[in-house]
C-alpha cells in the first residue's frame, strides 16, 4: 500500500515537490516507486538549466522500465542528489526522503495549482 504524505504537493506524472523558502526538493512518489519496482539508475543531467513546468529534468530506470522525470513547476535546477548515483535503491526504501533534485523556484504561485496528497491519491489509484 503506497504512502501519501500531506506535507508536500504532487503532479500527475508522479513527482512530488517540497518547498523550503525559495528553493524546493523534487522526488517521485511512493506509488511511483512501487510501480517501477527495483530502481537501478537515476539521472538528472539538467543541473544548471532553467526549466519550465512539464519539461524533462532527468530519468529513472528500473530493470525493465524507464521513465522520464518532469518539472512540477518552473525553476532552475540547482543540484542533483548524488547519493542516488551509487544507491538508487534509496528511492525504493523511502521515496520521500530520497529527493532527486533541488530547484530554485521561479514562480511560487504555481504551487497553488498542484495536487495535494488526497487529490493525488485519487488520481494515482
Amino acid at each position, binding site marked *: 500500500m503506497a504512502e501519501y504524505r500531506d506535507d508536500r504537493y504532487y503532479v500527475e506524472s508522479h513527482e512530488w515537490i517540497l518547498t523550503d523558502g525559495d528553493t524546493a526538493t523534487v522526488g517521485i512518489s511512493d506509488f511511483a516507486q512501487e510501480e517501477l519496482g527495483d530502481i537501478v*539508475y537515476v539521472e538528472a543531467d539538467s543541473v544548471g538549466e532553467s526549466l519550465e513546468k512539464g519539461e524533462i529534468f532527468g530519468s529513472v*530506470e528500473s530493470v*525493465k522500465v*524507464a521513465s*522520464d522525470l518532469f518539472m512540477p513547476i518552473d525553476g532552475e535546477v540547482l543540484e542533483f542528489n548524488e547519493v542516488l548515483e551509487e544507491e538508487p535503491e534509496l528511492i525504493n526504501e523511502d521515496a520521500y526522503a530520497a529527493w532527486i533534485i533541488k530547484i530554485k523556484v521561479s514562480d511560487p504561485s504555481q504551487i497553488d495549482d498542484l495536487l495535494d496528497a488526497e487529490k493525488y491519491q485519487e488520481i494515482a489509484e
Partner: protein
Amino acid sequence: MSGYIPISREKRAELLESVGLKLENLFDVIPDEIKIKNKDFPGLNAQGLSEQEIAAQLSNLAERNKRVDQYDSYLGAGFYDHYTPAVIDHIIGRQEFLTSYTPYQAEMSQGTLQAIFEWQSYICRLTGLDVSNSSVYDGASAAAEALLLACRQTKKTKVWVSEGLNPEYIATIKTYFHAAGLEVEVGALNEQGTAAGTYPSGDDYAGFLIQSPNFFGIIEDMRELVKKAEQNKALSVVSCDLISLAMFKSPGEVGVDIACGEAQPLGIPLNFGGPAVGFLAAKQKLMRKMPGRIAGQTTDTEGKIAYVLTLQAREQHIRREKATSNICTNQALLATAATIYLALNGRSGLKEVAEQSAAKAIYLHNKLIQTGLFEAVYNKPFFREFAVKLRHGGSLDVLNKKLLEHRVIGGLALSDDVWLLAVTENKTKKAMDDFVALVSNLIRQENILGG
C-alpha cells in the same frame, strides 16, 4: 508436404478438425479483394526444388565468380582477406550458437551471453576503453552510431569527420545524420594524407572522428585528435582496426572517448562484403547512452555466476521512441567468431598477423616504387594498405583489366592513376614478386600509360 514442413496436409486437416476448425477456412479473415488470385508471378517458380537441385543451381552461380583464393587479389578498402583458422567454422556451425535467438531467456542462453561478455572484454582490452556493446551491424553503422552517441552526450548537433575515413562510412554517416536532422562536416586531409592540423575549432561540435589506419592505410596520431577534441569540448572518436592494435597504441591509452570499427578482419570471410560485424566501445561516462545490446555479469538465486542482457532501459523495447537507438539485436554469431579468432591467436598470434601484414605491405610498396613506374602518394608510415601513383600517367582501369587476364585482381583504382593496394599475412613473397614483375611488364608492353 513441401520443403521442410514436417506435418502433411492430410494430418494438418485432421488436427484442425479435432479442435473444430477447417483447413480451408484458415484464411477467411483475409478479405477477398486482397487475396492472391493471379497464380503466376514472374521470377518465382511455381514448384519447390529438391536439395540436389538447389545445390546444383547455387554451385553453378558460385562458379561464375572469380575468387580471391584462386586469383591473386590486392583489394582491401575496409574488408581484408586474413586467414580464417579452421576451428572457427566448427564452433559457430554448432546449432546451439547458430540457430538460437537473442538471449532473452538467460537460463537457456548462457552460451551466447558468456560469448558476448567475452567479446565485450576482448574489445575493451584491445581498444583500451571501459565499455563495449555486444556489436552492431558493421563498421560504417558503428561510426554513425558513435557520432550519434556523441551528439546525445554533448547535446550538440554537429560533428566533424576526417576525409581519411572510409568513403563508404562517410556516406553512411551522412545518411543517418541527414535523417536525424544533424550536421556532418567533412574535413580534407593534409598533403601528407593525415588529419594532423586539419581539425576545426568551435564549441558547437559534438565529436571529431578520424580513422586509423586511415583509408590510405596511414597510422594517424590520435593524440592530436584527443587534444583538439578536448579544446573544443567535443568527444574524440576513432574508427580503428583491431588487428593493428596488436602493434599500435590503443585509443584508450591516449584518451580517446569512443572507438568503433569493423571486426571483419578477425577471420570473418569476405562474403562479398557481408555480413559484417561492427564494434563500439567507450569511456565509462558514456555507458548508459550506448546503443545496442550489452551483456553483464551477475549472480543467480544460488549465488552462481550468470550472464544477462543488462542496461535494457536504454533500448527500444522499453523506451520506444526515446531509446538510444532502434537497434534490436547484434551480430552475435560473428562477434563470437571474432572472439574465437582472438582466443586462438592470443596476443602472440595476433601480433604476428599484424606484423606480417605490415611487413608484407611495406615489402610490396618498396618493390613497386623500385620499378620506377610508381611513386608514393603520401610519405607517411602505413599499416597493411597504401596508395601509389602511376608516375607517367595512364589508366589503372586498363591495367586492372589486363591483370585479370593473368588471374590477378589488382588494387582499387581511386582515380585513373592512384592505386590503393592491401596485403595481409595471406600474401606470399613469391606472389608479390610475380605481381610486381607482371605489373611492370604490362605497363611497359601494353598501352597503359596513355597519351
